[in-house]
């Protein structure tokens, strides 16, 4: 058993979820226990670590019901669904005799096997059987999934959703709302409790760090806590590689003084370095109020941009751009302690807003590439655009040679017009 499994809360009240969610869960399970259920199933959805499975277990504990679980480790085709979930939904449990006498958990329903292979008989699979289970069941059914919107598009999913209560397990929508505060406190208390129980020596600031690092994934938080138990050195060396959203990356860059930490999280970033720099560029004025701070941080960013621009000569230079731009916070004297809502870079927004602009952007890319390789100024190339256009239309072979040499994208090729 892993630490997160050991510390699954037994009680609905101990779950780290919103109060409204708690009320909805309690009234649903109570409706079953009082034989007045209107919705037979409940769908719990949200990112990993938001407590979906724990909630199912807590619901079972609440009703004092055994759990019949179908998790992702089993093959959930039609036969298995019928053999396990449908049986459990219609027949009594050998080990208890109440009514309802068990809770059926269909874990990670977004991966249910829905084969359309006619050679295996029939064209419907696990989900049609799940729908049948929900229609016939005399026991409460809990369905968990990560991606509700992807699930919604599948066959039979509409009807499953119609027969179920749908609960979004995301603990908060934005960081500046009241739910976030309550989430943070509950997570902190829970981690503190576990570290006391397990004799893990960890400070309050370190706990804060773990929460900020992993939120809203409580399972990851507890796993990270476990790292403190097994090793005594700091979390930066042990922490798992998790790609963060660019939003938090920007926030870390502006506020976190631990340069190595910021750089490490940048290395696992999924986004393009330029996109990240555009975000910094957009948000520096919102973050810093002191003009000198602003000046210094733009200075850092502009140096990073020089290396980014030189990537056309050698792509490994992009690393320097990242390493320089992630040090923005080091030159700041007056840190901003208040909440700032970082905004999406206007530049990119406008680019995508108008196709016309996009063409101009692509054209500029083409010209820059050519100017680097041919040591020619941009204006000179612009004057000679007619030539490249003729080349493109009349001489495929030469144009292909240029486009491979410059590594032109399709958009960049299309941007070459009369």
């Amino acid at each position, binding site marked *: 058993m892993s630490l997160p499994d050991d510390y699954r809360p037994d009680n609905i009240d101990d779950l780290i979820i919103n109060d409204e969610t708690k009320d909805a869960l309690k009234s649903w399970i109570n409706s079953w226990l009082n034989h007045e259920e209107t919705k037979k199933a409940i769908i719990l959805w949200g990112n990993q670590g938001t407590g979906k499975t724990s909630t199912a277990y807590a619901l079972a504990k609440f009703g004092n019901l055994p759990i019949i679980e179908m998790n992702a480790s089993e093959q959930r085709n039609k036969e298995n669904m019928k053999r*396990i979930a449908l049986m459990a939904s219609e*027949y009594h449990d050998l080990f208890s005799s109440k009514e309802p*006498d068990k809770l059926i958990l269909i874990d990670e329903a977004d991966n249910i096997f829905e084969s359309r292979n006619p050679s295996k008989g029939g064209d419907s699979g696990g989900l049609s059987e799940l729908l049948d289970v929900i229609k016939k069941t005399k026991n409460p059914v809990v369905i968990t999934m990560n991606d509700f919107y992807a699930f919604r598009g599948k066959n039979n999913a509409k009807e499953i959703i119609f027969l179920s209560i749908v609960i979004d397990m995301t603990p908060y929508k934005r960081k500046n709302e009241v739910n976030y505060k309550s989430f943070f406190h509950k997570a902190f208390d829970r981690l503190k409790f576990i570290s006391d129980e397990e004799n893990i020596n960890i400070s309050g600031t370190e706990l804060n760090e773990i929460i900020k690092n992993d939120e809203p994934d409580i399972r990851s938080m507890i796993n990270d806590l476990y790292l403190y138990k097994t090793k005594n050195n700091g979390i930066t060396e042990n922490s798992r590689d998790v790609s963060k959203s660019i939003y938090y990356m920007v926030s870390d860059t502006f506020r976190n003084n631990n340069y190595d930490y910021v750089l490490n999280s940048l290395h696992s970033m999924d986004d393009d370095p330029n996109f990240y720099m555009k975000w910094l560029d957009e948000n520096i004025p919102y973050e810093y109020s002191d003009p000198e701070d602003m000046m210094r941080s733009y200075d850092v960013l502009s140096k990073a941009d020089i290396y980014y621009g030189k990537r056309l000569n050698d792509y490994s230079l992009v690393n320097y751009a990242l390493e320089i731009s992630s040090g923005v916070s080091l030159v700041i004297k007056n840190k901003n302690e208040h909440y700032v809502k970082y905004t999406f870079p206007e530049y990119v927004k406008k680019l995508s807003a108008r196709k016309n602009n996009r063409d101009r952007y692509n054209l500029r890319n083409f010209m820059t590439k050519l100017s680097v390789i041919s040591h020619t100024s941009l204006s000179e190339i612009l004057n000679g655009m007619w030539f490249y256009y003729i080349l493109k239309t009349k001489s495929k072979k030469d144009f292909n040679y240029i486009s491979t040499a410059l590594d032109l994208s399709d958009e960049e090729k299309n941007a070459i017009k009369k």
Partner: protein
Amino acid sequence: MIRMNISIKNLKDIVDMLGTVVTEAKFKIGINGISVNAVDPAHVAMVSLEVPKSILSEYDVDSEEEISLDLEKVKSIIKLSSSNDSLTITKDKDKLKFEIGTIIKSISLLDNDQITTPRVPQVASDDYAVMPKSEFEKGLRAAEDVSDAIRLTLTADNFSAKSTSDADESEMILPKDLLKELVCNGAIKSSYPLEYLLKLVKSISSNEDIKISFKSDYPLNIEFSLGSGTSERIKGRFLLAPRMES
């Protein structure tokens, strides 16, 4: 240490019977014999078997021990042999060694902690019927294409099994004189999953008798014997949860 010699017929009957509910099982190898309980993942059906030492031509066990096996692997060993063979089984650290004539096969044991053994629920009823398995099987076969569930009824005069769907209906009535024994203190009826009953009767030899006991809306208890043997046999129990009636 564990060393035993078992006839293929007995081993096959045990594995087939357990296979009606599970794919992996934990055997308790005791001084006086082997016992095994298995429950299906939905907690609807349970098989419980007692294998007495006397039906094994060789049985050498120092102390009680539990071993867990993948039944599919044992089945593949059974396929290698003919039905009147017998095989020698020895436990060698975390492996189980099977010797059939010229072939020696070892299969690895499963982790005992991974396989939960259910406690056997207290199920007892005063009302029961003993009948030839073949008669019971006829009624199940008749219901097979009608519904997923079958309703069993026991009265002082007869035993009946009925299935209904929107379109079709099937019923078997066994009057008292076709039953070997009948004890009933008042009519009882309850519905059970047909699929498990069919699997069960398939795993019992056709000339056997079975004892069926139940109450209204109460688990079904079927007692039967397996394998070959003259004085003692493998004793089996099959428990089946009743359908929830609304």
